[in-house]
């Protein structure tokens, strides 16, 4: 894990996104903290002028700076790109031949990639967290920090990012190239949520319920990796799951990477036995999604029409899915020709 040659090599092939990540954290935390202070001061002044109420910073305002909001989504995207530069892109080029010829275990190669990412995330996060915290702490809005816990604004986002990054590496261990890695990471990162939404819609259209729909069950949130990056886990159980999932993904990823068949680099999946699983999942999702889209065009009152249009959408997209999947199975993206 600490071979400096591997650190150097990994850094060299991902430094672009590593520095983007730093920029994102700077924008999210210190810069946003400064700008928020401005905004809050302005609001407080306005509130004082109109004399009607005293402006108070809410927990939500603080969370926006540390663990929620638009920037966390950007960070999540950057983390997926980082993981895909370290594993996926290597597969698209001849670099994988180089790394695999080195005198290291493949799991060591995987751990080195993991360690680089985790160090970068932890380092940059802490580096930006501390000054932002101090900035707010020194201001007149310091009380806002008491509205949130350190679990919410420090541990949850940090461990959430680490988990999501590890998750993206795990996906990299089973996919054959960069684009598949990115696409699958997002798809699986949202999968429980996507399935829930699609089934709910399916049941609603048919007015037939296996389970009641109301607010989103909490376990779906826990099972959806993406939620870990957007500050949804500010509680003990969330933290615990983030750590647990990180351990599972690290060990699992290393084990899968060890069994890597790089002759399948450039193809959709490295492990051919996973093909049927993904074909089924993808087909179902696409078909259900087709139903959802087309049925939403039908007027709300016309139930029969909605069901018909649902199935029209379903079958069209099913066909489309089958065609797409055939392409996926035979695809091969390598940038410098397949060595013979």
């Amino acid at each position, binding site marked *: 894990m600490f071979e400096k040659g591997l650190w150097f090599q990994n850094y060299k092939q991902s430094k672009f996104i590593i520095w983007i990540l730093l920029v994102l954290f700077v924008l999210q935390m210190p810069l946003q903290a400064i700008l928020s202070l401005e905004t809050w001061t302005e609001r407080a002044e306005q509130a004082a002028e109109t004399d009607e109420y005293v402006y108070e910073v809410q927990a939500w305002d603080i969370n926006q700076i540390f663990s929620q909001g638009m920037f966390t989504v950007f960070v999540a995207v950057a983390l997926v790109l980082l993981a895909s530069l370290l594993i996926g892109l290597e597969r698209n080029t001849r670099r994988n031949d180089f790394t*695999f010829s080195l005198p290291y275990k493949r799991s060591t190669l995987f751990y080195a990639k993991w360690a680089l990412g985790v160090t970068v995330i932890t380092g940059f996060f802490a580096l930006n967290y501390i000054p932002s915290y101090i900035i707010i702490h020194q201001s007149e809005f310091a009380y806002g920090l008491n509205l949130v816990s350190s679990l919410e604004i420090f541990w949850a986002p940090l461990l959430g990012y680490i988990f999501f990054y590890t998750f993206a590496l795990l996906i990299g261990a089973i996919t054959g190239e960069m684009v598949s890695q990115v696409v699958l990471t997002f798809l699986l990162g949202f999968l429980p949520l996507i399935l829930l939404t699609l089934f709910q819609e399916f049941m609603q259209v048919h007015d037939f319920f296996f389970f009641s729909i109301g607010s989103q069950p909490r376990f779906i949130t826990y099972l959806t990796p993406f939620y870990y990056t957007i500050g949804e886990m500010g509680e003990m159980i969330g933290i615990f799951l983030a750590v647990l999932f990180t351990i599972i993904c690290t060990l699992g990823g290393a084990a899968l990477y060890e069994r890597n068949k790089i002759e399948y680099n450039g193809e959709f999946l490295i492990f051919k036995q996973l093909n049927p699983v993904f074909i089924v999942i993808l087909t179902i999702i696409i078909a259900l999604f087709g139903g959802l889209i087309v049925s939403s065009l039908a007027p709300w009152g016309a139930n029969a029409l909605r069901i018909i249009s649902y199935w029209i959408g379903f079958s069209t997209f099913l066909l489309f899915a089958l065609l797409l999947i055939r392409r996926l199975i035979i695809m091969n993206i390598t940038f410098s020709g397949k060595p*013979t």
Partner: protein
Amino acid sequence: MEVKHISKVIHHQTILADIEFEVIPGNIVGIVGRNGAGKTTLLRSMAGILKPTKGDITIDGQSIFLKPSLKAQTIFVPDSSEALKNYSTKELIYLYKSIYPHFDQQYLEALMNRFSLEPINKIGNYSKGMKALFTLIVAFATKAKYILLDEPTDGLDVIIKKQILQILIEEVADKDVAVIISSHRLDELEFMANDVILIKDGRVDSHYELDSMKELYKKIQLVFETELPEEIAENTYVLEQTGRVSTVLIPRDSTAVEELISSYHPLLYEELSMSLEDYFIAKLGGDDNV
């Protein structure tokens, strides 16, 4: 280093089948075969990049797949330096130095001077020949015992080609290293390799030591009244046939074949000088050889 009965199946296609041989330091081993015969797959397996479907690669009796640290003794030089093209010479030296503990920077610098290779910011900006030279020098500087070269001289001009082969020979003469070279050009390897492994359709078609080669076969030019009798064609390797004149390869000590030929009363029976390439062509299939 031993290649132990390795087979490789990719997409249900057998690329390598039961390949076995041994590499002893101090030798230059040529792996020869037509394009697509499985040479690169074999080299990549020997470098530990691909895991064989069956069989194993061992160094000092231990599997390189179970004990990857053994791979510090091998280095693989692919036919393109694509993988590290964005590195500067300095970065590359740093990288190799931190991976190969015995990396010899002095040797590297001495050879770079000898071939007037200037340090550069991006290895990708070296000319093709310089890249090939540089990667080879770096490979030798790692002090690895087994150097695996995939088509090292492919597409290079004669001068660079000669320089590359010379470095290689000097290394083998100086140190206890083994060089394993794949090539589809036998003429280049003919005097360099003392051990040639011919691969056809993923199998070892023949394996011989160079010096014994010429003692095994002879090349004969034959002219008959009519066309080449079929019985002769079946019992010899036909290298070339133009009209009534044919050139065939026969085992040097086979009186049976010679008697067979004389029984057809050839108008001309003349021994010609033979190169290994003749043998290669005969074994791997006629004039349509790529």
